């Protein structure tokens, strides 16, 4: 067994423990929204750090699409061990990244069960993507949606500066 694989197990356990913690720490009316944004913020920090180290020796990107392709292929493979399955764009700053078997959902369910918990398991990754893009000079809003687990779509809306 490689450190690579095991480390992934460790990350997954840590990730769900963080969700558990953030969830229990937040009580009150807007708890869900606050919980999600806390997770998103943590992901943002991590995404920033990762991309900084990961692109240290890579050539400059041609354009926004080039950056998105990098996120879908190299970045996703490094973090989740697979590429994004489908990338769509309207060429006006909206990108939809579809992962048919999202790593952080596969342990949870393969159907409609636990659907109400899915957003919590996506928030950190939304932040991860936003943080990575941010350090590549692309400001964005990243959201996610699930129709049937473990497939999900991340929507990236580029904010023009």
């Amino acid at each position, binding site marked *: *067994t*490689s*450190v*690579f694989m*095991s*480390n*992934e*197990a*460790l*990350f997954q*356990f*840590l*990730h769900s*423990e*963080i969700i*558990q*913690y*953030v969830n229990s*720490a937040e009580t009150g009316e807007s708890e869900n929204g606050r919980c999600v944004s*806390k997770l998103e913020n*943590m*992901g943002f*920090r*991590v995404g920033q*750090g*990762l991309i900084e*180290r*990961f692109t240290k*020796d*890579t*050539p400059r990107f041609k354009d926004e699409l080039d950056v998105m392709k*990098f996120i879908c*292929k*190299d970045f996703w*493979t*490094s*973090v989740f*061990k697979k590429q994004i399955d489908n990338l769509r764009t309207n060429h006006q700053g909206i990108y939809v990244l579809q992962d048919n078997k999202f790593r952080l959902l596969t342990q949870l369910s393969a159907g409609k069960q636990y659907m109400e918990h899915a957003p919590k398991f996506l928030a*950190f990754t939304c932040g991860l993507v936003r943080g990575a893009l941010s350090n590549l000079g692309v400001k964005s809003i990243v959201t996610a949606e699930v129709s049937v687990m473990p497939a999900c779509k991340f929507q990236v809306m580029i904010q023009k500066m």
Partner: protein
Amino acid sequence: MSRQSNRATDSKKMNSELFTLTYGALVTQLCKDYENDEEVNKQLDKMGYNIGVRLIEDFLARSSVGRCHDFRETADVIAKVAFKMYLGITPSVTNWSPAGDEFSLILESNPLVDFVELPDNHSNLVYSSLLCGVLRGALEMVQMAVDVRFAQDTLRGDNVTEIRMKFIKRIEENLPAGDE
């Protein structure tokens, strides 16, 4: 294309950095949420415990390690198999108590603190407390009650990082009634 060619090596490194950085983000958040370092240590330990009770199953499934017959064997498995498997390091096992119920793990490097520097106002923070919880939780699932704490920590100015483990007792298995 050069970008693609070094992907394999990069991704391995990146995966461990993902864990390290995520852990860092968690500690940062806890420091915001709690007023003092002791509370943060406690929370990290608790989360580690929850991870440990689950991680032990992953560990037993991946490794072919059977039941340990004594605490020395347990120490060896932790240092040489478990730490190697999950963190890629092999701590040395030292400072056995005469009774053989207490030992230290000396960590040359601690992947959890790779990018960390403790600010002065967090002198009581035991940054890697999670590890204590993980060890305690995992061992509890194999019927061993063990006290785990950091005796030394390079982050706090010590020369080495030392985790002290003390065997407390064997936990009796609670068999369901009539299932003996």
